[in-house]
């Protein structure tokens, strides 16, 4: 029985269109350990990002101990339930060299793109998720997906470069419709019928491409470059159409959810948390259904305006206006916001860890890269900016560790992540952020 291929379908025609009839997910599709499909194809590795705003209160965020079994100071106490699944990185630096320290901007831009921006409008390169998506995202319906818990479509840390921002999904209902609406093909459905609309679109696209290819021979170099960019987009569309015309592989963990209720706009911390959890659940189901293998979750923006019931200052305002309590040694209300962020980080990691896939979980086959914009937001500090990771990337990463970067570039984590995702790069980052040094302590 183990010789049965997961690609084995019943084939025929329907209304003139090719039809393949799939089989439900059977144990025979998996190997003996449940860690790969029976034909040896490994369960795919996924890459995710997660972001929170406005850094930390160092004295109650950074553990005293490094390595395994590190202590959890009060600001990250909420991570107790996920400590075994994450790594915490502190004392890593973001270098700006000759660039200015752009408040709430330089920190996240460097950690996501490797380059210090010269102006606030400047996004100097593609972000890490885009680079990884080129490697991982070609076999799925969406090359990558982004979602925000803020309800604000402008909140994204994913961009192709320049001003080409990958807009996030901001409404749970819209996100659901995009994921599981009429274009969704259930990988575990017993039958598969190619969507005639997709076939028409693909035919039209092919015709356009043929004409465009002829046109390419008749234009100058600059126009050829423009056409090449255009064709790249067309090829991506064609790839997506091909995927939609092919019976998807069955996915054990994929269960189509009911459509969620939409939420009102607003940034009350409870509402943001609720939106974050709804978006997380949708996102992870999209991953489980293999709609994407690269996904970005945005809990709060760099200028986070999340509000606290009974307190008059939103998060960003509080970081600057609230005095450091001389007895506590930190800003209590500002810390409240960070603690809420850590609760949501724990929810996110737990959600991945509890998502069964094979003999393990989604988290076992993922690597999540979590960053913020400042270390101590009150003074816009970016030295010692904290980061997290979660997941073992298919057993290749050790977790449960606190790593002291000893002042080395924060880009080391992004570099490590890209290497783990199979990118053939020798280094990552610009100027002093450039690194070819992986964080070896976490590698198996």
């Amino acid at each position, binding site marked *: 029985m183990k010789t049965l291929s997961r690609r084995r379908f019943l084939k025929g025609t329907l209304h003139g269109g090719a039809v393949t009839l799939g089989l439900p997910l059977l144990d025979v599709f998996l190997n003996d350990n449940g860690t790969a499909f029976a034909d040896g194809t490994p369960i795919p590795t996924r890459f995710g990002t997660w972001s929170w705003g406005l850094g930390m209160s160092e004295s109650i965020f950074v553990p005293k101990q490094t390595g395994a079994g590190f202590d959890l100071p009060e600001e990250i106490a909420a991570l107790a339930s996920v400590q075994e699944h994450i790594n915490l990185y502190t004392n890593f630096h973001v270098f700006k060299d*000759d660039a200015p320290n752009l408040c709430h901007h330089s920190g996240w831009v460097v950690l996501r793109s490797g380059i210090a921006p010269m102006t606030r409008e400047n996004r100097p390169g593609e972000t890490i998720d885009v680079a990884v998506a080129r490697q991982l995202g070609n076999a799925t319906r969406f090359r990558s997906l982004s979602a925000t818990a803020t309800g604000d479509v402008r909140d994204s840390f994913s961009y192709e470069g320049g001003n080409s921002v990958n807009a996030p999904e901001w409404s749970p209902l819209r996100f659901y419709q995009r994921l599981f609406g009429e274009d969704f093909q259930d990988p575990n459905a017993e039958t598969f019928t190619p969507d005639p609309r997709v076939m028409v679109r693909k035919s039209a696209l092919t015709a356009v491409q043929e004409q465009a290819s002829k046109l390419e021979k008749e234009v100058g170099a600059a126009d050829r470059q423009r056409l090449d960019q255009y064709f790249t987009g067309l090829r991506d569309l064609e790839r997506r159409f091909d995927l939609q015309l092919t019976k998807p592989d069955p996915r054990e963990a994929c269960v189509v959810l009911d459509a969620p209720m939409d939420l009102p706009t607003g940034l009350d911390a409870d509402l943001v948390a609720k939106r974050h959890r709804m978006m997380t659940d949708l996102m992870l189901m999209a991953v489980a259904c293999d709609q994407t293998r690269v996904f970005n979750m945005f809990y709060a923006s760099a200028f986070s305006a999340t509000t606290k019931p009974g307190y008059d200052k939103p998060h960003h305002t509080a970081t600057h206006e609230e005095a450091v309590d001389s007895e506590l040694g930190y800003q209590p209300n500002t810390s409240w916001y960070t603690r809420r962020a850590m609760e949501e980080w724990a929810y996110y990691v737990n959600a991945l860890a509890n998502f069964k896939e094979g003999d393990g979980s989604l988290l076992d086959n993922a690597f999540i890269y979590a960053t913020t914009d400042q270390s101590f937001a009150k003074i816009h500090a970016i030295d010692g900016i904290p980061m997290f990771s979660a997941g073992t990337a298919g057993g290749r990463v050790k977790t449960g560790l606190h790593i002291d970067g000893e002042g080395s570039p924060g880009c080391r984590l992004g570099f490590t992540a890209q290497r783990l995702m199979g990118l053939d790069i020798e280094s990552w980052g610009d100027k002093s952020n450039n690194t070819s040094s992986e964080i070896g302590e976490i590698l198996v």
Partner: protein
Amino acid sequence: MKTKQLLLITSLTTALCSASSLADEGMLRDGKIGYVMTDLFWSVYQTEDASQECPRGFNDGPREQFEELFPYHEGLSVEETQLKQEIETWHPSTEPDGFEFLEVEGELSWGLNLDGEVGPNDFRHPDGTPGIDNEVYRAVGCVIGFRGPDGVEYIFQNKAIVDERYNRMMIELSGVESLDNDDAVTVTVYRGMDRLLTDATGSKVMPGGTQRVDRRWGESLIREVNARIVEGKLITEPMTDMVIPWQNLRVPSIQLIRDARLVLDLTETNATGLLAGYADVDTWYYQLIRNDSTHHLSNGQISGISLYKALRRLADAYPDSETGDNTAISTALDIKMTQVFITHPKPLGGD
């Protein structure tokens, strides 16, 4: 192959020798040395827990005052509340606002004896020198935003010096025979045009950078003054009116300091000390509120409305010829500079 290797070694040796001789030459060349400003902020003498200078605590800011003024503001219009306060911020008066303003009550202050006299309102320097004139300190010393290490004014001003170029202020000493003692040197104040040379963090300014003099927009800022160096300390004569290009939160503005003088400890790589004189009150105030929105003022609990009244009340120089009210207030600024090589492009022809 061997020839190429030999040439490479020779080139490297030459380059290393050149670098070595460059270092040997020192920063003082042809009697000149330049310094570029890296830090500048109002001198605020602080004790631990502020118990000496602010025994009654700190002043309230716009948000605290708003709550006191309009405890039931829900029923009032924006014009009656927020805009009313904004209007008073932008068109301040000397009339009382109903809030007690907490001035510095301590006896000690950084600064210089600007008028050569010792009066009852003067501070005493921590080293014991009497007659210190620094009424700006008396006004802002108990305002959180002006206190280090994390007051909003303190943070943003110094951040802007490294990040921006509009406020690139520098001095060039000429006719210098020794940085230890020289009874006659000339100090010229310029504005530079270039970014600062920093280490990789982008925060620490390194000596050895180069700055071009801004002979276009910076021409009107050039000042020349006689000075002397005594045991490594540069002491200038007063400059009638020194205009400091000031930038905070990306908004360009200026400070006008009358009778401005520099007292700086010199080394070949750094110049550190005070810039003191009389700040024009209106220029001082409008620099603050042009640079800072109410949000930023609130960050530092700075009520512009109350502070303006204090500045006018404490002003101690340059009386208005008609009203007799003083228009300038004594002050001192902590200044740090780093050695820089200054180049002089030709002035633009006037047309």
